[in-house]
């Protein structure tokens, strides 16, 4: 990771400039060129270190979402993970070390949309899907303080 990449990750997880040439503004702040900044972000994106440059929406702010979990028999986990991935309403889907071994976030325009996805996953997997909607947010993800080693 070079210095420009590190400074992009440290300084721009929030507060992205809302100007016509945002990458030029970032470049100005980091003493670089606009095209260097764009190139560095392309590189970080291709290597999977960043998933995108974009907006994170507050939960409950637009549409409806929930955290869902199910207990897949270990030999069926991959098959069920694939089934869950097939829904465009699912944006995160993780294995976790627990009896409830598959955890995923469902986001839809409204609560009915969330319910439909839960019902469909349950029907097609034959498993109970636990629906754990958020009631209160104490700390949103406002970026991540990276400790460079």
């Amino acid at each position, binding site marked *: 990771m070079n210095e420009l990449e590190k400074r992009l*990750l440290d300084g721009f*997880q*929030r*507060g*992205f400039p*809302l*100007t*016509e040439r945002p*990458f*030029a503004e970032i470049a100005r702040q980091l003493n670089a060129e606009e095209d260097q900044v*764009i190139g560095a972000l392309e590189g970080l*994106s291709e290597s999977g*270190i*960043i*998933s*995108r*440059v*974009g*907006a*994170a*929406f*507050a939960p*409950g*702010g*637009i*549409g*409806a979402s929930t*955290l869902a979990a199910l207990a897949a028999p270990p030999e069926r986990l991959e098959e069920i*993970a*694939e089934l*869950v991935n097939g829904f465009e*309403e*699912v*944006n*995160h*889907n*993780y*294995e976790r*070390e*627990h009896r*409830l071994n598959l955890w995923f*976030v469902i*986001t839809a*325009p409204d609560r009915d*949309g969330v319910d439909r996805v839960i019902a469909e996953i349950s029907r097609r997997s034959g498993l*109970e899907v*636990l*629906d754990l*909607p*958020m*009631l*209160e*947010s*104490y*700390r*949103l*993800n*406002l*970026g991540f303080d990276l400790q460079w*080693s």
Partner: protein
Amino acid sequence: MELTGELTGADRRLVTAMGPGLPLCRRPFREIGARAGLSEKNVITALKRMLEAGIISRLGVVVRHHELGYKANAMVVWDIADEDVDQIGERFKTFDFITLCYRRKRRPPQWPYNLFSMIHGRERQAVLAQVDELARACGLEDAPREILFSGRRFKQRGAVYNSGGAL
């Protein structure tokens, strides 16, 4: 807290266009505007307004922790009395190593936990030590809790807010 009533049709198109992230070009907001049927100026104005209203919690680079060496991703869940949970949640958020903290619905008997805190660490041992530190500092040594480390990531991306334009 459904805020959808505050979003105009143009906002919804903008949210959909922002889903995959900003294009990495010199005029990204003009590009987004072209997808959403908005002018560059209106895109910028609408994004500012949504940030101020808290509909967008942040705008910037979205990092993937795992690729940066943060491989010990733990969801730590706690069963906290309903009358205490707000106070504990407020306390948790003052710890820098907690990246997310939410109260969620319990589903007894399968799921008794109501407080969720996320810790992204490099080493499992360090995360376990942080959980102990947290419990001690908040007087929760005896509170029922579980630590769920993540395994495979089957999917990780931003939410997609389109459903035939129904949003």
